[in-house]
């Protein structure tokens, strides 16, 4: 089965964190330890939303040292495709669910002399696990965490209490902003930078750092893309001999799965590269939305990432 081995879990608790965020705690059905993970790892949560199968990636935020449970935090997106709304409205303690094994696309580079973390909003979650990991194994870090308001700054109290001199908080509503150029100019050699948050923030941080001479190899980011909506389109699947229609709120990957095609995937957010598929014929325009393929590959239209990318035009034939 695609997506790797699965874990059967029970929802142990659901905790409201603020108006937008809820925390979910999962334990193994048989009460045994869950597989080990490292800070920055995510799991893909499978949801049966009244007949619609939804699979959303969420960063694990609990301590990697605690294998008795996994915790995730989900921000409700009222304009989204429905995964976060399902989690908020329908997932209750005692429910049985299926998770993927943890996959880490955003690990700490433990060779770094120092870890500089920059978080925006719900982008804080992978850093919670990474900081827990550093607490246990040692390692110098500094966290700069921006949120819309004090009320929406999830886990700020916990972080500042445990690490008063390493955690710095900023609030948009109070017109506070990270002094990025000063921050980037004053880091000791051997610092690695990690950023997780809204797309605009990630682009701002990465482009500023590169312009100041930071090497790309010291810059790490994670952003899970929601597949995004669009016009329906038709795709021919060469290997399975099927022609499918991808609906407005469906991804190409989801449409293949609904048609019984076992296509590979891991992150379902355009980051990991697992679902990369060759394009046999493209008479039209592929709407590339992933972070995986290079700009040259996007221009060549010879490959597509079905988890997030769409198509507009006459004919698309892919090798699946």
């Amino acid at each position: 089965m695609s997506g790797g081995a699965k874990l059967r879990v029970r929802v142990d608790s659901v905790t409201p964190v603020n108006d937008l965020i809820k925390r979910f705690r999962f334990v193994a059905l048989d009460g045994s330890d869950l597989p080990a993970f490292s800070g920055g790892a995510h799991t893909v949560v499978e949801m049966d939303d009244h007949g619609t199968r939804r699979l959303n990636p969420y960063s694990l935020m609990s301590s990697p040292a605690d294998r008795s449970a996994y915790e995730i935090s989900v921000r409700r997106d009222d304009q989204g495709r429905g995964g976060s709304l399902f989690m908020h409205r329908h997932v209750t303690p005692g429910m049985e669910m299926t998770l993927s094994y943890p996959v880490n696309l955003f690990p700490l580079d433990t060779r770094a002399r120092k870890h500089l973390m920059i978080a925006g909003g719900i982008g804080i979650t992978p850093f919670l696990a990474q900081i827990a990991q550093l607490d246990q194994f040692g390692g110098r870090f500094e966290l700069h965490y921006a949120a819309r308001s004090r009320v929406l700054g999830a886990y700020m109290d916990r972080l500042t209490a445990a690490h008063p001199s390493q955690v710095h908080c900023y609030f948009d509503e109070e017109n506070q902003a990270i002094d990025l150029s000063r921050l980037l100019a004053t880091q000791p050699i051997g610092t690695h930078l990690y950023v997780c948050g809204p797309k605009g923030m990630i682009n701002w941080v990465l482009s500023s750092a590169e312009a100041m001479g930071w090497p790309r190899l010291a810059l790490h980011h994670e952003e899970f893309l929601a597949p995004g909506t669009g016009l329906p389109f038709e795709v021919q699947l060469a290997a399975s001999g099927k022609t499918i229609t991808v609906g407005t709120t469906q991804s190409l990957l989801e449409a293949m799965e609904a048609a019984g095609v076992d296509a590979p995937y891991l992150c379902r957010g355009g980051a990991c590269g697992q679902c990369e598929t060759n394009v046999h014929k493209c008479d039209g325009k592929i709407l590339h939305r992933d972070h995986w393929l290079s700009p040259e590959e996007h221009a060549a239209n010879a490959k597509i990432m079905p988890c997030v990318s769409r198509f507009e035009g006459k004919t698309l034939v892919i090798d699946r």
Partner: protein
Amino acid sequence: MLTPVTPTIRSRPVYAPLEPRPGRLHLMVADGEGADALIELLAKANNRSEILSSAHVIYAPGPNGTDRSDVLKALGLRQFFRAPTIPALLPRLVRVLADAHMGTQFYLAGTEGLIGQAEREIMATGFPMGAIQKEHRGSTVRRVQCVHCKGITENVATDPFKCSHCGLNLFVRDHYSRRIAAFQGVNIDAEDPGQVPEPVVRFK
């Protein structure tokens, strides 16, 4: 010109011409003919004066005696330091690294012994190896570790050669250790003691 390296096994380092990159400090470490690589780097930069005003060059004469200190000094660098030898150069580099910030660009040029040992000190800070620029120039003599006694012999010119520590006859491999910053030398007459091929000058 860049000293050509024949790619053999994956572990054997390869090099590329130095290119100017944005940075707040340009830290250049070179020996011998490596000075020419720095001069050519500056010649192709469209912000030459900006780089010069934030350049720190740490330099030692090459193992063949090449010393371009005067040429480098005349460039108008922000800082120039001449060390008599590589072992005397490295503590200076370590001291500079202790205060350096991200935004520093590293340019290494010259013999493989100099490049490898400077790279090792930079990597020890956690700075990504792939972001360190390296251009091999001048002498091709090798720094070789005897895999048997672990002693390092500098400036090896012939293959095989006699380990300067334990006296074994060593075959010079392309197998390279970044951790030790040396090629590996393996006993060539272990099975038939005394059956040693005639040494050939492979490194000049």
